[in-house]
Structure formats: C-alpha cells, structure tokens
C-alpha cells in the first residue's frame, strides 16, 4: 500500500527536501517558457536590432547605406519641424481621444451596472465597435465625414456647428477631430468592459450601509464608487494612453497625416519615414524617442501611484 520512496539510498543525515526544492524552483519557469521564448524572439530581439538602427544609416533604396552614423539621426530630429509638430499632435490626439473614451466609457459602465429590460442585448450591441477592424472603421468614418457621400457634415450644419457642409478632414485646424471621433467610437467598449467588471466587484452592502447613513446618490458615487474604481482606472488609463499614442492605423487610413501634416502623430510619422521614404535608420530613431517618452510616462505614473498609496497608509 505504501508507495515506493526514492529516498532509500540517501544518507540518514540529509536535511530538508533538496531535489524537491530544486524542481519547485524550476517548475514556474517551465510554465512561463513558451511565452518567454516567443516574446524574446519576436519582440525583444527585434527591438534591440531596431534600436541599433537608430545609430546606423539604413536606407533600403540606397545600397551604400548601412554604416554607423552615431547620433546623427537624433541631431536631425531636434531640428525636424515635422517631428516636433508630430509630438504636439500626439499629445492632442492621445489626450483628446482618452478624455472622451474614458468618460463616455465610464458613463456607459455605470448605465450597464444596473439591471434593466434588454440589458443583455444592449451590452452586446454597445461593445461591438471594438470588434470592427480599425482600418475598416477608419475608412468608414472617412466616408461618413465626406459631404458628398456621408451624412455627418449635413447634420452638423443643421445643428449649427458648421456654416455649410464641408469635409473636416481637409481642414488643417479640424482634421484631427476626425480620427479622434473614430477612435472614441472604437475605444469606448474597452473602458466600458473594464470599468463594468470593476463596478460589479464592489460589494452591494457598502451602498446599502451608505444609504442607511443618509448618503445621496452623488455622495455614494464619490465616497464608494470612485475609490474602489481608482486602481482599475489608473491601470486602464495608463495602458490605453500608451496604446493610443502608438496607434497610427486610423490616422494613416483617414488622413495619411495630412492635410499639411496637421494630423501627423509620431507613430504615423514613423510609418511615413519607414515605408514611404524607406529610411529605417531615421524611423528607428524617432521610434526610440517615442519609446523613451512612453517609458518615462509609465514610470512616473507608477511612482505617483506608490506615493499616493503610501500617503494613504
């Protein structure tokens, strides 16, 4: 009945469980190895390779390129007006999209958080935009903004937002709003889903206790809902900011950076440099700068969160 032990051969004075401890240490890494291999091979190695391009002159069309140029790219970057403009546009693009995606997503989550007739159906429908391929929705929205074939300019005119129907995508001052609106349409489901999940994990008794204590709906929101949501909000905001900053598809498809570079963001600028001008060295340098900026952003958010949680406790 007793199972065979493997310890018959080991000396009596052995302490603890040595080989078990070793296999215990290795075990997690076995589980994690497929993912690690994939990420290192497909993302990290190319990243390092790509970063090396920043210091080299790689122009696909020029067979003589490939030499080491040191920091020449970065020096060019500092005086590159298009790049600096793209930096400003990136900020506009990112925070414009984020503000509306987040607030509308939160409102939607709050609406979905209570039981009502048809909720299941509504929930399914309202999350659909996330499943639509982004370039397709980009094309679609571009189509909708075009006064010849789309309804939006006409509606905006009747609402008084425009003097007469025109395509905002060809107006340098307004063009950015096109992709932003398309991005809002696409991004609301992400926030709605994550916020809804967080809302549903708040224990109902907290609200019941608060309403017994006499708190109004608004007070309950401020003192219960928001603090509980805070960690989720922080993480999703940070993740999403980074994704949006890197998200060039909609812009490339709707405006291609124009008119007159007014919608060019850093990510789409990289695309232009890399694939229109086929200058990989310069494109990699731009990407490296973007990466550093985003890293700095992420680190500062993490540091801020640490400081805030420490201040609480």
């Amino acid at each position, binding site marked *: *009945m*007793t*199972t*065979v*032990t*493997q*310890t018959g051969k*080991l000396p009596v004075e*052995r*302490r*603890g*469980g*040595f*080989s*078990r*401890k070793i296999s*215990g240490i290795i075990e997690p890494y076995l589980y994690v190895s497929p993912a690690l291999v994939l990420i290192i091979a497909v993302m990290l190695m190319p990243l390092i390779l790509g970063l090396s391009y920043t210091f080299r002159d790689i122009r696909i069309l020029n067979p003589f390129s490939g030499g080491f140029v040191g920091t020449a790219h970065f020096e060019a970057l500092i005086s590159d007006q298009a790049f600096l403009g793209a930096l400003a546009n990136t900020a506009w693009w990112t925070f414009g999209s984020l503000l509306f995606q987040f607030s509308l997503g939160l409102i939607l989550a709050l609406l979905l958080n209570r039981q009502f007739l048809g909720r299941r159906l509504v929930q399914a429908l309202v999350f659909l935009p996330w499943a639509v391929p982004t370039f397709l929705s980009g094309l679609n929205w571009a189509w909708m903004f075009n006064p010849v074939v789309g309804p939006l300019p006409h509606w905006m005119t009747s609402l008084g937002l425009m003097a007469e129907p025109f395509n905002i995508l060809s107006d340098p001052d307004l063009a950015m709003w096109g992709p932003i609106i398309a991005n809002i349409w696409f991004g609301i489901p992400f926030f709605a889903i994550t916020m809804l999940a967080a809302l549903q994990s708040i224990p109902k008794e907290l609200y019941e206790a608060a309403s017994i204590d006499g708190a109004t709906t608004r007070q309950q929101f401020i003192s219960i809902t928001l603090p509980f949501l805070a960690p989720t909000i922080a993480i999703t905001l940070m993740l999403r900011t980074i994704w949006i900053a890197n998200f060039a598809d909609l812009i490339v498809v709707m405006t291609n950076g124009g008119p007159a570079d007014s919608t060019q963001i850093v990510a789409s600028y990289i695309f232009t440099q890399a694939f229109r001008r086929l200058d990989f060295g310069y494109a990699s340098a731009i990407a490296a700068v973007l990466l550093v900026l985003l890293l700095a952003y992420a680190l500062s958010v993490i540091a801020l969160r640490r400081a805030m949680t420490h201040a609480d406790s």
Partner: protein
Amino acid sequence: MASIQIANARKSYGAVDVLHGIDLDISDGEFIVLVGPSGCGKSTLLRMIAGLEDITSGDISIAGNVVNELQPKDRDIAMVFQSYALYPHMSVAENMSYALTLRKTPREKIADAISGVAEILGLTALLERRPKALSGGQRQRVAMGRAIVRKPQAFLFDEPLSNLDARLREQMRTEIRKLHRRLGATSVYVTHDQIEAMTMADRIVAMHDGIIQQVGSPVEIYDRPANIFVASFIGSPAMNFLEGSYEQVGENSAGIRLTDGALVPVLPARDAQNNQAVTLGARPEHITIVSDGKNGLPAKVELIEPMGLSTLVHVTLAGKPIKIFTMDRPDYAVDSFIHIAFDMAKVHVFDSASEKRLPPASEPHGDHAGQ
C-alpha cells in the same frame, strides 16, 4: 495505517522563520490535534506533512519512510480542507472516486468503496448531486468521504469545521470522533478551537509562535499546563491570572502575596524562591464564594451572568478582573462585596519571567509533557 515522525522540522519563508525545530512522534492510529492561535504554524506543519509545503530542514517520516522528497501524490495521505475543495464540475460520486480513478482501480471496486462510505456518512441519496447543490454540512461530509474512500496511511484535517455554524460543528465533532473509533486511522487535526481539541484528541499539541508549547492528553493539558500560554488557551471560560510574589510561610506552606497585599495560600512549589515574581493561575471553577472574611478575600461584584445551570460571576480582586464559575444561585447583587477563596490544591503557580509553571513539590517528577 502508519505512524508519523517529525524530527527537528523547520520552515522559513526567505528570512522569516515560521517553524523552529518541531519534534513530534505520532503513533499509529492516534488522533492528534494541533491547536493554537492564528499564525502559530499549525497549518504550515500540516501542509509540510502533506507535501504541499517544502521542508526547510529536518525530516518528516510516514510509516518509517522519510518523505521529504516525495510529492503529495506519493505520500498516500488524504486531506480534508477548510473550504472542502470539492471539484465543482463533478458529482459527489465522481469527487469521491477521483483518486481511485487516477489509480486505474476497476469500476466495480470503486462503486463498492463509494457506496460503503456513502452509507456511513449518510450521503447515499446525494451521490449524483453537484457540490453547489449541497449544504455546508453535506459538503463537509463529502470532503471526508473523499478522504476515507482512499484508505490512506494518515488523515490530515485543516480546520474542517470552521465554516460551519455552532450546532453543526457540535454534530460533526461527534461524527468525526465516531468515525475515528471505527476506522482507527492515524489522524492529524488542526484547529484554533480549543473545545474541538479537548473533545476530539487522543493527544493535544499546543503550538504558539512556531514552537510546540506542550504535548499531552486533554486531561493532562487541562490539569497541568506547562506554561501561561497553554493555561490561558485551553479551557473556557479562560483561567484567571494574578501577579504577585512567592512567599515561603514555614516549611510546608506557602502563599502568593498579591499586589494589594492579600495573601493567597498555595501548595509549596518545587523550584520557587522567596520573593520570586510569580503569577497565580486559577480556573473559574476552582474559586469559591465563601461566607466571611476569615477564609476569603474581599472582591467587588461587577457583573453576574446567569447561564441556567451555572452562573458566571465577574469580580474585581486586587484591581484585576476575575471570573468565578459557580453552581450556586447568587444571593448577592452587582456592586456589592463578596468573599472568595482559591482551591489550594488546584491553583497553579507560574514564574512571571519565563511563564513556565512551577509544579508543587508534591507532584511526581517527569510529568512535564512539553518543552
């Protein structure tokens, strides 16, 4: 069935030591209860026996074989978890037969084993149900059934009754005890409830801060606690403690001088010095209410708790709260003064510094079952 030996077992998580050198011998067929407050290391020790935790150093043997290197599945033990850990997507019958299926036991044998155990535990009608369709008590019994079907060398229980209401707990205590008598299985049972320990154990292992404080039968632990921790942890209502200093009054008598000057007569303690700082320990049932001041000390009544058959009287003596357990109906009121006396033969003297009990000189030597 098998014996279990634990030799100098230690457990640390990184720099934190959780168990410091545990030595314990469990005989074949014994029902051992590990009892102590949260964080004392009892669950960790149990999990080390099961193989769910690594042993930092020391040896654990089951049936004479050192099992340190073995995975849980190779140790031939069964465990009942606090949360029962029933497989939610399997029926009761499937839950109970899982281990046997893994061993490729033929189907008829499995069916026989399950129906036998189900009958003992009253689960026959529930065999096809899923865990979520069962009550807490039923789930608990399925968890036990799953363990019993395996006929393991030893049973391990990790606070299995904690999630049940008080009445169910009482019921299950007796059932587990009866099962143990019937199966004669070596069992290691972890709980923080001293009533469970007292009613179920062949021997109790009292643990605190990762060390075994005392090992002994329930009666031994109750009557002769090794130190203040064990004395205060076991027994409900808890023992009363009063600080004082030891006084040798003549050759064969001694007393403890309380902080208010009163002297409580005690049996002379073997290793006590005159003026040694000591703590008097008296269980509520060993204090009596007497009629006058000649034989008793004055105490103020703070609260009277009638419990039907008995009464618990809270008084203040020497500035400290004392609880008295009496079968007499009180004829005094709150805020009045009564006189109390301590049963000399039954009270304990503890050294205040080491907290160890100082046994009376008359007690036979070698009675300390502990460290």
